[in-house]
């Protein structure tokens, strides 16, 4: 049960991080599109900061997600 909850939590966190990673990437290359889509919340400078800060948490959660999803290590 705990393992299942962890797996779900990791999967959802990874989804959020992936979306943030992609959106902030677009915020750097297409600042005006992202700025208008986020109602001015995400400008180019903030996108760049988020994008550069995300890679560590993203990789850690990705590794955890692979661990929980990989059949070899499943119970």
């Amino acid at each position, binding site marked *: 049960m705990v393992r299942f909850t962890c797996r779900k939590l990791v999967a959802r966190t990874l989804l959020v991080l992936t979306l943030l990673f992609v959106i902030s990437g677009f915020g750097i290359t297409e600042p005006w599109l992202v700025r208008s889509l986020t109602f*001015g919340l995400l*400008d*180019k400078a903030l996108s760049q900061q988020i994008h550069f800060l995300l*890679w*560590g948490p993203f990789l850690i959660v990705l*590794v955890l997600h692979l*661990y929980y999803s990989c059949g*070899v*290590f499943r119970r």
Partner: protein
Amino acid sequence: MRRGRRTGQIIVILLIGAIAVLYALDLAGDGQGATELAPAEVREYQGERLSSITDFRENSIRGLQHVNASTYTLTVDGLVENRGEYSYDTLIERFPHYRKVVTLYCVEGWDVTILWEGVRVRDLLEEAGVKPEANTVIFYAEDGYSSSLPLAYIGDRDILLAYAMNNVTLPAERGFPFQLVAEDRWGYKWVKWVTRIEVSDDENYRGYWESRGYANNGSIDRSFFDRG
């Protein structure tokens, strides 16, 4: 099975540890990279010959102004919903940057073609929220100089508040920290050392030279003398 799971856990812990160490090193390394030197002035951009930043003639009303970037504040006020105050770093970090080649035509007869880089005045005004009755934008400088432009002109054109020219940070004599790039307007509209932007409904506001006989419109396809 249990052994495989244990191996998996060890691999995951090692991987996460390695990533965490690399991430920590990356964060610690920010700002400790190579010292950035001032970039060299570019004299050609996309095949177009540029003037030099030394090709200007000094004609400011009170001589060279030295503005301290660490204490500098740009105020955006007047007919706006949210009065804004920005430090030099905030302005540069917060707003998108734009580049374009624009020629400044001085009433003295000389001109310079420069690659300007800056933030759009329009973006600042959008953030401040211009009130519907506004029609004019007045720019004030550190030395008491001022000039105005129609709000529609600012809105229709990508008018820059430049912080760099020819890939070099504006020198003090060129208006550090910010010079207005009023393209298609005579040089007296290109306010240097901008410290305040006021949004107004006074379309007859006359700045320093305008109140001394220069045209308020300032368009380069018209005479700079006010003929009424």
